[in-house]
């Protein structure tokens, strides 16, 4: 850790710097607040001169995601970033990428909706990201950072998971993580790829079978098999890729479940409640898909635990997954702020006290 370069950076900038250092081959994107610093940073620091990484401002998010699709088809490390309305525009392309089983990294620095909404932070895209935003039965492996450090760390991890599973990986961030500055230990520069996977359509090597990338199968008998194979892949992700963090859960009687930026705030609420002698812990899902189902089920089965509170920057989305895991064993309450508002630690503290009548 101490060997790594320490800098004070915005989340968006840290992510962009981490992308260069992760050996990304290309970035395609379209400006939208609050994530525009990503593409600005790539141009400003001249990533092309540094590593040869290509960067292009597309004419729309629709175009950007299809540039990502093309680039991913050649087996290169490619990413895009956007914010909520832009992510909606990318939905079709994401479905094609999932269907064609191509690796890529998608960043959603989300903002308040619906519609044009607000540029302030929100987690109202949980459903969109985790339950699939495009058409068809597919899953987006989703990482939820809660610090600028994780904004940086999840880039290389995201690329590696994308290639491991030949699947798009999403970093679901939000406007506050994108805009706020924190100290961040930057990863070492790793080289760009020099060899590409066998399936990559980057020109048929002499004497080898040509490759093609498609998500099309007109025969339902064939296409069901493709879907079954995809589902098997998603089950593997659920077995191997669940990530989470627990804070003071070992003796907790009440558990706050929160992801991303609100987990940082809820951590302070835990301290405030503990100071009053209320044993509260924090469970932070890091992968939103695959969701840490079994871990929450285990907590729900623990006789010491009296209940859960889902704290989200939306009207209650992740709470559905928590309830699926808890399966009615314990009460699951909700506290959230909407439309770009972010609660104080005290607001969350009061919500817990009220929910459990403490």
């Amino acid at each position: 850790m101490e060997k790594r370069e320490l800098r004070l950076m915005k989340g968006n900038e840290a992510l962009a710097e981490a992308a260069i250092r992760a050996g990304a081959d290309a970035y395609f994107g379209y400006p939208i607040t609050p994530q525009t610093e990503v593409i600005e940073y790539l141009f400003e620091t001249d990533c092309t001169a540094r590593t040869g990484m290509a960067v292009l401002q597309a004419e729309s998010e629709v175009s950007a995601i299809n540039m990502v699709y093309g680039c991913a088809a050649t087996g290169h490390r490619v990413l895009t970033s956007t914010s909520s309305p832009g992510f909606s525009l990318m939905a079709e392309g994401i479905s094609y990428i999932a269907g064609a089983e191509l690796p890529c990294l998608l960043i959603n620095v989300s903002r308040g909706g619906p519609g044009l909404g607000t540029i302030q932070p929100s987690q109202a895209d949980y459903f969109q990201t985790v339950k699939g935003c495009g058409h068809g039965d597919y899953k987006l492996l989703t990482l939820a950072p809660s610090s600028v450090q994780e904004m940086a760390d999840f880039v290389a991890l995201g690329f590696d998971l994308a290639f491991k599973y030949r699947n798009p990986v999403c970093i679901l961030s939000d406007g506050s993580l994108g805009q706020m500055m924190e100290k961040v230990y930057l990863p070492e520069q790793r080289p760009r790829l020099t060899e590409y996977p066998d399936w990559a359509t980057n020109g048929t090597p002499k004497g080898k079978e040509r490759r093609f990338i498609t998500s099309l199968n007109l025969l339902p008998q064939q296409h069901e098999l493709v879907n079954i194979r995809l589902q098997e892949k998603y089950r593997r992700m659920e077995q191997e890729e669940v990530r989470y963090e627990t804070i003071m859960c070992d003796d907790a009687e009440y558990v706050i479940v929160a992801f991303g930026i609100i987990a940082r705030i809820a951590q302070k609420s835990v301290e405030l409640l503990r100071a009053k002698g209320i044993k509260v812990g924090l469970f932070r899902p890091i992968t939103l898909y695959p969701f840490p189902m079994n871990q929450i089920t285990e907590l729900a089965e623990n006789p010491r635990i009296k209940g859960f509170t889902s704290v989200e920057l939306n009207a209650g989305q992740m709470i559905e997954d928590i309830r699926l895991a808890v399966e009615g064993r314990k009460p699951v309450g909700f506290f959230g702020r909407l439309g770009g508002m972010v609660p104080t630690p005290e607001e969350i503290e009061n919500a817990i006290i009220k929910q459990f009548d403490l």
Partner: protein
Amino acid sequence: MDVKDIIKPENLVYKKSRLMSDNVFNFCPGCGHGVAVRTIAEVIEEMGIENDVIGISPVGCSVFLYDFYKFDVVEAAHGRACAVATGIKRVQPDKFVFTYQGDGDLAAIGTGETMHACNRGENIVIVFINNGIYGMTGGQMAPTTLEGMKTTTCPRGRDVKTMGYPLAITPLLAQLPGTYYVTRQSVQTPAAVRKTKKALRQAFENQKNKKGTSIVEIVSNCNSGWGMSPTAANKWMEENMFAKYPLGDMKVDGQLVINNVYEKK
């Protein structure tokens, strides 16, 4: 000459490109797509670039391209071929990338992607099949459908007052500084095919020489969609489609050929 003479090797005048697979075309008999598809294969074979080619087959009758070619092909969402081509080309500038797009793909849903790829001067080849109708979905109106022409979504003929005018998009693309070569050809006669092949060769040579975007529009038929026999469709095409979409070069070596850009009066 009887059959025994005809099959002698020295009398062989045509054979399928070795870059074509043995899969049977899914195109309707009489359709120009088959000729266009194999002419591209011939050009790639003759240039000897098949190990460096990536074709893009977007949604439409073009979507099965990967069934017919024995080189790398990427299927694309409807309209997005030029964006996909850009994504490929930007990380592999020395490969040959071409799109094969219909009129719905290139001139309706994908207008933005096409226009901006051309405006950036992406060093790719765009092959544009203009048959004035949506073939794959069963004969609906295309942006290029002629005024008064009947389709399933303009069953009483295209009414330009409510449905807009037939869109001649290649002259617009020729205006952009990023395009280096824009030509309009056809494949309904051996002579026309030879011209198209020459144009395709020029387009790929331009890419080799990193000149920018080359567009080969091929005005073609859709005898099924038009509800005609192949012969009648070709005749109708020559009389009606060529009047609105006259054949010839619009831009050569980056220079506009002004006189041929707009329809003949």
